């Protein structure tokens, strides 16, 4: 059986036995990971909800610094575009 990728606030509310308003408060406080799919419509990633239930959500910490010899080229293999030449106009 495939797991649903996202849950609605109502589904999360049922599973947690709280009201949908409480779920929205958890989202707004940043306690429950959620994505905004359109104005005022939230979805909760199922994987994130599992982390929440297990008490395994991470808390942000400063990333470590590493010394690297060479700066990378962020362009990768992308070809740079060139603007088309302006059309010539004759008088």
């Amino acid at each position, binding site marked *: 059986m495939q797991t649903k990728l996202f849950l609605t606030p109502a589904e999360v509310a049922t599973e947690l036995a709280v009201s949908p308003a409480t779920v929205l408060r958890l989202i707004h406080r940043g306690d429950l990971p959620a994505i905004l799919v359109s104005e005022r419509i939230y979805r909760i*990633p*199922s994987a994130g909800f599992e982390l929440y239930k297990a008490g395994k959500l991470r808390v*942000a910490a*400063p*990333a470590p610094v*590493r010394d690297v010899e060479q*700066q990378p080229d962020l362009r990768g293999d992308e070809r740079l575009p060139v603007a088309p030449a302006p059309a010539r106009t004759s008088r």
Partner: protein
Amino acid sequence: MATLRELQVHLGTLATILWNYGASFPDPTLDRYADTGNLGFVFTAELPGSQQPRAATVRMAELWQRDGRDAYRRREYAYDFVEHPLARRRAFHGHDPDHFAREFRVLVHEHCEEALGRPTCQHYYGLPVDAHEAIRRFASVWGQPGPLRCADLQCMSS
């Protein structure tokens, strides 16, 4: 402008947002480049999904140019989102700013592919975005049916 410490926190926060969506990836590092003195990071996160092993990938990259003793200014970025089950791509890029300024009088561009690997347009005009906005916009289409609305963007070069 940001200090090294602020960039460490910035990167840690981005990684935490993605981890808490259920993404998997190694702990990213803020890299200090010996050849330029600049800072930056590049990491790729695999988002969860029902079609394993690959559902969607998010690649986040930034380059911060040194602009003082402990001051850095974001010079380049590349935020990419590829959704494999739906075979599509969205990206916000701000690399090679000198080239784009010279050719198109803009610093940044976007990519949008309704059909992965078959873009209608190679580069679209766009506005600068920060990493949080990029993640928010990627997440808003992640797993959602319907088009990416590439046709609403203005093509820079085809």
